[in-house]
């Protein structure tokens, strides 16, 4: 039995020490990088301790709950480590550990150069706040931690506040986050008033005491309130603005786990606070999931800023997770706990998986950025020769996120498919059609994601470098590489070892639906994954991996048969007879995504302009200037008008304060008259 509580508190202490040390270092102006390293080490320690605590929480029979010391009489910092919290802590601390390792080499460079100590302090603050978000056991404490996360994240994003881009991105994030919190306020308090208590334990299944109207209202408020943080469409616009501009280890954490705080909140509300919900609720979540997934990946395809691309993929994967959640809700509404559990597992497992590979990809992108000083893929290329291990890790991440076997992305998507498939049989008439359609669109999403990462990896790492920086890129430091290595390893292990990981979910599904199905999900003595029963379909990532190795070595057999080792000569690529193939001839990211841009033109409304300068005749262009952009639908048609409307109304209202004292007196006079009449009347 692990000393879970001690581990947990020790972890918090480590983070806190990190914060304190960082602030001290900043105030005393000791910006030397060894302090930063020391603080990164502290956060690493904290992460490991929390990891232990998470394990303890998952192994524990009941939930562990205690409360931290609070200096405020009316405020208790209640902490609860039930399976769901423990699971998210697990994910958090895994990512936190690898990011801290990565940060050893990362901090003290470019954007964090000004004051690495302060930067690390905020990093620790973010980790601390997230830990609290996942474990807070009453609404007030939860909201405090929730907002604290936003604050820490904001300061990390704008850490390089001299760049207008990061100021803008950070601000957008912070303001939208506050909007979300506003919704949470109301939603939570509606529940709390019904339950008569702020404690999560009292809120369990509180929905039964709610009137349908209130229940629906609170559900929507909470769903969209958490949705802002999770980045569901149409509340996603902050995500591609904020994630890319942050320092890369921060982007990694944000896309990896910070947005998962929204997912945690939804899981908490949907499956802990609410009992069976009406059908429309599940459908809403499902539809939002599908839309986010599809639009997310489509927008990602159009990006040639590597980090923005990754950011949009976060939107996509959140969508996939929500498909799982949505079908879980539907199954519960129709009384199929087993299936609900399957769908929930699909969603939660994908949450962890996405965390891992997205973090990995962002760290990879960070290394590339570190080496080439640009995020623009059109400036990259040929990096696989210059930074081989980064390339390898990035490739692993790319395969995983494209949901290709045998890595972890495949497993969770496979479960999602199975859940959707089962949905058709398990639900009455029209609802059932939603499932396979969703499945088909999930397939489309996955295929597009694959296309997108062929582009991302191919353009970034393969063929010839397209710029000086890429030409002279160097492999990153050991610590950064090992940070990525940990996550790459996690991708492989979670993929191949899925069968051994599944029991983790038993406690969670048991709490939510009263069933534990990991036994049914595993067959062939821990060798096969099944969709609830071997009949419904099986897959075995391990076996696939092995088989691929064996079959892949077949050809070598042929060489062996014709004992003639075939000669290999290396020569130039075919250049259509024009001597000297240069980077100019390479396919660009823009060109790569052109077919899809044309196919989905209705959505993208692409705009392009070509200016050509000619020397002698129109047949001999001297130079081309090609520029193409797509219309950001939501920014242009939803948020832009909204903003202008609010501002114009406000500036019109400024006329109330014209400076004329007579007008001011008139306000008071009229108010007096009205109130007198009211007073006499009432």
């Amino acid at each position, binding site marked *: 039995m692990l000393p879970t509580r001690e581990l947990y508190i020790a972890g918090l202490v480590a983070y806190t020490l990190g914060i304190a040390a960082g602030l001290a270092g900043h105030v005393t102006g000791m910006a030397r990088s060894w302090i930063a390293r020391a603080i990164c080490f502290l956060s690493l320690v904290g992460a490991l301790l929390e990891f232990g605590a998470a394990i303890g929480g998952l192994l524990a029979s009941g939930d562990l709950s205690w409360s931290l010391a609070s200096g405020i009489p009316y405020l208790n910092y209640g902490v609860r480590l039930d399976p769901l919290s423990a699971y998210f802590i697990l994910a958090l601390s895994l990512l936190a550990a690898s990011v801290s390792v990565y940060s050893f080499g990362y901090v003290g460079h470019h954007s964090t150069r000004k004051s690495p100590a302060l930067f690390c302090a905020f990093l620790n603050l973010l980790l601390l706040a997230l830990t609290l978000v996942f474990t807070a056991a009453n609404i007030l404490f939860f*909201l405090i931690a929730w907002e604290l996360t936003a604050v820490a994240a904001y300061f990390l994003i704008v850490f390089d506040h001299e760049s207008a881009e990061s100021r803008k991105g950070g601000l957008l994030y912070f303001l939208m986050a506050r909007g979300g919190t506003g919704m949470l306020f109301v939603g939570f308090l509606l529940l709390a008033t019904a339950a008569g208590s702020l404690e999560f334990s009292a809120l369990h299944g509180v929905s039964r005491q709610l009137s349908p109207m209130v229940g629906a209202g609170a559900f929507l408020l909470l769903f969209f309130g958490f949705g802002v943080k999770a980045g569901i469409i149409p509340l996603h616009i902050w995500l591609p603005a904020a994630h890319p501009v942050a320092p890369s280890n921060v982007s990694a954490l944000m896309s990896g786990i910070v947005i998962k705080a929204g997912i945690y909140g939804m899981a908490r509300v949907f499956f802990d606070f609410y009992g069976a919900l009406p059908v429309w609720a599940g459908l809403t979540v499902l539809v939002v999931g599908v839309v986010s997934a599809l639009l997310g990946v489509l927008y990602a395809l159009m990006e040639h800023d590597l980090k923005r691309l990754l950011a949009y993929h976060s939107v996509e994967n959140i969508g996939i997770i929500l498909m799982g959640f949505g079908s879980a809700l539907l199954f519960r509404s129709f009384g199929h706990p087993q299936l609900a559990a399957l769908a929930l597992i699909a969603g939660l497992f994908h949450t962890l998986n996405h965390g891992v590979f997205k973090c990995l990809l962002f760290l990879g992108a960070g290394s590339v950025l570190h080496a080439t000083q640009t995020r623009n893929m059109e400036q990259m290329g040929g990096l696989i020769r210059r930074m081989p291990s980064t390339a390898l890790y990035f490739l692993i991440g790319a395969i995983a996120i494209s949901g290709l076997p045998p890595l972890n992305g495949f497993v969770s998507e496979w479960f999602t498919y199975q859940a959707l498939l089962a949905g058709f049989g398990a639900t009455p008439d029209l609802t059932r059609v939603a499932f396979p359609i969703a499945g088909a669109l999930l397939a489309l999403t996955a295929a597009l994601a694959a296309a997108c990462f062929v582009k991302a990896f191919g353009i970034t790492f393969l063929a010839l470098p397209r710029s000086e920086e890429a030409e002279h890129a160097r492999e990153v430091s050991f610590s950064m590489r090992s940070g990525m290595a940990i996550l790459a390893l996690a991708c492989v292990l979670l993929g191949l070892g899925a069968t051994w990981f599944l029991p983790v979910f038993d406690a969670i599904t048991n709490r939510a639906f009263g069933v534990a199905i990991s036994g049914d999900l595993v067959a062939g003595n821990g060798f096969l994954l099944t969709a609830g029963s071997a009949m419904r379909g099986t897959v075995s990532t391990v076996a696939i991996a092995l088989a691929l190795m064996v079959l892949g070595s077949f050809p070598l057999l042929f060489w062996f048969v014709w004992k003639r080792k075939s000669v290999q000569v290396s020569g130039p690529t075919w250049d259509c007879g024009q001597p000297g193939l240069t980077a100019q001839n390479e396919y660009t990211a823009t060109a790569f995504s052109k077919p899809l841009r044309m196919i989905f033109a209705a959505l993208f409304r692409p705009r392009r302009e070509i200016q050509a300068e000619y020397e002698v005749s129109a047949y001999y262009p001297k130079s081309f200037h090609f520029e193409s952009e797509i219309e950001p639908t939501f920014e242009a048609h939803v948020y832009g008008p909204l903003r202008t409307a609010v501002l114009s109304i406000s500036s019109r209202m400024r006329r109330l304060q014209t400076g004329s*004292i007579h007008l001011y007196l008139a306000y*008071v006079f009229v108010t007096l008259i009205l109130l*007198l009449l009211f007073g006499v009347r*009432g």
Partner: protein
Amino acid sequence: MAILTLLLIPLLASAATVPMRNVRRMELLHLLSAAGSFLAAVWLAAEVLRSGTVTWGDGFLYADYLSALVAALTAFVYLVSAPYAVGYLRRDEEQQVFAETGNGRGSFSKLRKYYALTPLFGFSMFLVVVSNNLGVLWIAVEGTTLASIFLVTFYGRRTSLEAAWKYAILGGVGLSMALFGTVLTYYAAHQILGGESLNVLNWSVLAASASQFDKTVMRLSFILVLLGYGTKAGLAPMHTWKPDAYSEAPAPVAALMATAVVNCALYALARFYVLTERCLGPAFVSQLLILFGLLSIGIAVPFILVQRSYRRLLAYSSIDHAGIMALGLGFGGPLGALGMLLHMTFHSVTKPLLFFCAGNAQQHTGNDSLRQHPGGLLHSLPVSAPMFLLATLAITGTPPFSMFQSEFTILRAGFAAQHVGSVILFVIFVVAIFCGFFYHVANLVFGPDPGVPRGEFSRWKTLPVIGLSLIVVVLGFWLPAPIYALVNGAARILAVQP
């Protein structure tokens, strides 16, 4: 005894300043009076904590938890603004801002005016909270206006004259309404208690028998008092003088007005709230308070969103917070009153910090415009700029800072009292205000180095900022037991008796 000390210290200080010839001595005296009155306030609070209420002169002066709390807060603001004022005015002297307003001996008379009037200002505020007699209460509130008019015109600019005029006229009208309300209350009491004796206007006496008062009279009286003291507290639509006065007065005075005066006005309002509530039951009062509270919060939204000067920004923010407190009182119940008083406490700590940071920024850059400001304050003001940001987060109710807790408490009170609609409006407004406020300040503080020379070398101006920020941060995590006891006791006075 404590009460008397509290009143005498500032009064004597102000009297002693008038004949003085030496600015340094004035400064010293000012600091001493501030410290002294703070100690006195603490003493009073201690007395109250020990023995429920403290009275003097057979109940002429009377202090219970509520008075002690507000007195302590006022004294606190007075205390922190004193050293800041010293630094602020010295800086003004260096920059010869008094030169162009060359009436008579220029800067010296100015400074003497400041150091003489501010303690008087403080005195009248202390009188507000310890006077048991509602008439005297009114006189004291009027006194705060009179004492502060010439602090508003301190810089003698055209704009500050304008501001002062609006302040005086609106204040005058408002207070005459308050007086009318007081007269009506007295009339209501007169019918029951009879007699011309002074005590008939004593709150403690009235509170005892308020339940038998004439309902119509009390209703009208509360309406008038609400409008009257509401004007002083800056509730919409009587708020219009606030942005002008706050942006024209020197930063320390603005800080006093934005916190201490607002507290006093709300204190007076609360006293009448109790009487009316006991007479008419909660429904009538709370609907009025909620109406005005929401109106004030709502009116602040557009002006904060498209604001052009950060001093006025702060003014609108304090209108917003006055509204929030009124709302808390209006929601009622133990939670509502508790929330309101907690909010008052935290607001009185945070707002001065904001005004000080803003003052430093304004003195450094020479204007308080948000429009043509290059931003990047962080480079030239290494202390004030980050603290400005911190204070902004605190004032907009961002955790871990404590105002979040009080606002949350008020929200809960609203839900407990079934005012769901108002609560939703409240949340929307607060979010919008946060967006505007933070947007402006972030653009002010962050950004590339505009090349303004690095400023703030005066300890007088930085230390109060640092100290206050420390307190703000600490309050987020630790609320000392005595303060909470005080707040709680005060809340029990205001809470609706079932």
